[in-house]
């Protein structure tokens, strides 16, 4: 149940295994209450995140996407998040050209010990997405309607 009033929105989080996923764990162990709109996908490293993951999520049903990795210079693989930083920053520029509010996608760095910070990140981003409301979607192909019907059941 979302601690925010009203409808729960769908936010996808891509978290690196070594820092941010640990940070989210720390927040859980510390019982830091967070909104529940976020669904987490654990990836080995923020450098593993194909920018298309983010675009696919935004186009096919997410109202927001959050990426979180190790702080720069703290990457488990030394430089994965440096590459990620460039890619993520560039891909953000595609959103306004598509008619998607760029605030629907953010990336940040949270270490495994930063449970409090994780709580703050999730709260802030969830608020931001709730301010924007549900995302508009491009229509899907009518010949695939059955998939929608089954998903709704």
């Amino acid at each position, binding site marked *: 149940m979302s601690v925010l009033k009203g409808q729960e929105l769908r936010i996808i989080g891509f978290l690196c295994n070594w820092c941010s996923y640990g940070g989210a764990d720390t927040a859980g162990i510390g019982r830091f209450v967070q909104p529940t709109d976020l669904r987490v996908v654990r990836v080995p490293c923020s450098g593993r995140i194909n920018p298309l993951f983010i675009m696919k999520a935004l186009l096919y049903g997410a109202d927001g996407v959050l990426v979180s990795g190790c702080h720069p210079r703290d990457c488990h693989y030394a430089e994965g998040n440096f590459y990620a930083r460039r890619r993520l920053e560039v891909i953000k520029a595609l959103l306004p050209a598509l008619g998607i509010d760029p605030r629907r996608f953010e990336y940040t760095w949270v270490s495994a010990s930063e449970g409090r910070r994780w709580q703050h990140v999730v709260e*802030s981003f969830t608020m931001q997405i709730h301010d924007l409301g549900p995302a508009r979607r491009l229509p899907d192909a009518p010949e695939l309607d059955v998939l929608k019907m089954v998903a709704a059941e």
Partner: protein
Amino acid sequence: MSIQEELQAVIKEALPDVSCVIGWREGPEPLRAAPLFVRTPADADAFRSGYFAVNNPAVFLPEYKGGKVGVVVKGCDARSVGQLLAEGLIRREEVKVIGFPCNGVIDVDKVAVALAGACDPGEIQAAREEGDELVLTTPSGEIRLRKTAVTADKCGRCLFPNALDADVFVGDTLEPAVSADDYADVAAFEALSLEKRMDFWEQEMSRCVRCYACRNACPMCVCREHCVALSRDPRWLTQSDGVRDKMFFQIIHASHLAGRCTGCGECQRACPARIPVLLLKRALSRRVEDLFAYRAGVDVAGPPPLLSFALEEPKIKERDW
């Protein structure tokens, strides 16, 4: 001797060293040249350069890797060659680059607009240039159009009319008409509301037939038969006719060209449904230029920006929270 004749001579000279020289010839329609592959000196007589030679011959270069090939390039085509070289997709010693100064090329779509229904552009029987005018022979007589009205947009913002890094350069270098690319087209589009922008793409992409001409005409799309759009596992796209999948393919194309697109506009020109897909790539090029002061195909010393990183990124401001 005209530039075209000089180029023909240079091509003939280059031939003994290369398996073929890629350039242009007259196409089946007067306004559109077609690619030419010169293998014998006699073939070179069919070579045509100039206003109608729009195709980017750099698209063929990766196919000829492993043997030496010559290519005649305009300024924009030379940027594609430069970027292919920078990424190691072709080898410098395997291409002979023949450059010349380009005065701009035609945009056939603009001709259709300028004709304003007088005839179908396909009915044009002959075309010739007279000063700054284009003279078209149509079933209902001669029609004169101002070249400035029908020249491709990319030429209006071209900073490199002279082929960079050419082995042979024919003719006198030209001064570019502008001093910087202001990305006014991207800015104008982004001045629309988000709602309007998405409306625009929904309408435009509904015309897409998924022929992938945009991808295949792109000189930087080197995955060819291994494109992720064709993959069933992972399945990025369904086989449906939906606008969402079509849009997502354009996102794939644009994101794979981030920091690599030289703005030659072949994707848009190739589109049989006339969807302005270059816009997405230019939105990313503008960002890459802002962040890393990198222009694909020009600033090619060192690795491309998305294949490298800096410990501190002076232009990237990260989230406060």
